[in-house]
Every structure is written in structure tokens, then in C-alpha cells.
């Protein structure tokens, strides 16, 4: 799989999700998806529609561990910001969340949502999962949701995760995994990567 082509196709797909969250996509989105994945209503319900509608995760990165007040968190592929906002609530005013995304439309939406929510402990940076715009050992926790499977070079992503985590830091993420082997031909099918 050509990484540049895959990245371009993924960017196009999520540009569409940012602009048209209620259109038919191959995956669920928004509040119904958050409920399906087990996010507590008391966390999701207070968020405005604009902060939830483009959510397109595949699991719940907080299901195995909740974040602690004061933690510094990096969200890889933060999209319109849903998981970053959940994280910001958990880490509180003494914590910090840095969302990273490569899609300009998602970045614009997440930044607008953060302003609307009045969150001062969240920021969003443009960047790639394989080249995170985050300093070495700056993060207590790295989160991600449904993003790493879309990256052609997963080893590079995990190497970046290890670089930005402090010693003892935590990676907690959600992603898809297949229980049956994917044929070689399907691995080269860009439509199966992006939808």
C-alpha cells in the first residue's frame, strides 16, 4: 500500500465526515456510536452536537483505564475532538490534552468546539501519527481511537508513541483487529482501508 495515497484517501474520507457527519458512511458516527461503544451518558450528554456528531471511533480508549487529574495526554488522530474533550474532563484544569490530526477540516472543527466549550486545557495541532508534533517524553498518556489501523506504517506510529511517552507512561487506545486473515489482494484494496 502506497502510504501517500492511503493518507490522501483517509484525509478525503474524514474531510467528508467533518463536513457531513450525518451522511451515510460505512461506519457509525456521533452519539449513537458513542452509546454503542460504551461511553457513559453523563460524559457524552453535556457535550454539544458539534463536538460529538463527527465522532467516528471504533472502541472506547477509556474502558480499561480512566485518566487521572493532572495527566498530560496526547490524542493521535483527534478528529473533531470528541475523545480529547472526554480526556480534558478527566484530567481537569491541572492536566493538558494535545490533539493531533492531519485533516484541516477536522482541526478547524475541533478548535471551534474547544472554543465553544471554553476548554483551556486542550489544544489541537496539525501533524501525522508517524511524526507527532510533540516533544520527547512529554506525555503521561497517549490515546487514539480507530486511527492506527489507517496508517500504512504502524511500526513508525508505535515508535512515535514510545518517543513521546515519559518513562512509565501509558498507551491506551482503541482500534480494530481482524480475526481472519485478509488476502493479499484485499490488502491492496484502498476501499477496504478507508471504507
Amino acid at each position, binding site marked *: 500500500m502506497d502510504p501517500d495515497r492511503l493518507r490522501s484517501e483517509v484525509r478525503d474520507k474524514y474531510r467528508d465526515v467533518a463536513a457531513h457527519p450525518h451522511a451515510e458512511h460505512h461506519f457509525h458516527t456521533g452519539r449513537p456510536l458513542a452509546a454503542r461503544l460504551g461511553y457513559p451518558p453523563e460524559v457524552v450528554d453535556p457535550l454539544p452536537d458539534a463536538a460529538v456528531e463527527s465522532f467516528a471511533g471504533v472502541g472506547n480508549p477509556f474502558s480499561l483505564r480512566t485518566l487521572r487529574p493532572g495527566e498530560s495526554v496526547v490524542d493521535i488522530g483527534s478528529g473533531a475532538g470528541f475523545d480529547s474533550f472526554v480526556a480534558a474532563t478527566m484530567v481537569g484544569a491541572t492536566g493538558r490534552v494535545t490533539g493531533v490530526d492531519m485533516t484541516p477540516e477536522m482541526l478547524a472543527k475541533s478548535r471551534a468546539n474547544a472554543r465553544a466549550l471554553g476548554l483551556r486545557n486542550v489544544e489541537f495541532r496539525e501533524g501525522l501519527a508517524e511524526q507527532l508534533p510533540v516533544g520527547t517524553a512529554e506525555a503521561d498518556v497517549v490515546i487514539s481511537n480507530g486511527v492506527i489501523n489507517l496508517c500504512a506504517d504502524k511500526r513508525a506510529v508505535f515508535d512515535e508513541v514510545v518517543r513521546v511517552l515519559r518513562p512509565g507512561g501509558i498507551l491506551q487506545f*482503541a482500534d480494530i483487529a481482524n480475526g481472519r486473515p485478509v488476502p493479499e489482494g484485499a490488502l491492496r484494496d484502498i476501499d477496504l482501508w478507508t471504507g
Partner: protein
Amino acid sequence: MLEDVGLVDIVVGPPVDTFGGAPGEQNARAFDVYGYAFLARKPS
């Protein structure tokens, strides 16, 4: 791969039927695709 990069204490959560009822369900079923939560730690 998590072990390959040096992460430890790896935990994988139960499968979630992420694509059930969505237009992508057929592809997901074809390859037994589910969502999972993962937890791992960078050694101190």
C-alpha cells in the same frame, strides 16, 4: 507490535461489534473485524 517497540503490561479488552448495523458491516463480517481497547505501559 506493542511488545516489539518495548511496551509492557499489555491488556486487550473484549471485542466490540463496532460495525454492526452499519453499511460497512458486510466487510467487517467477512474478516471478523471488531473493535478492541488496548492498554500498555512504557517501562520506567
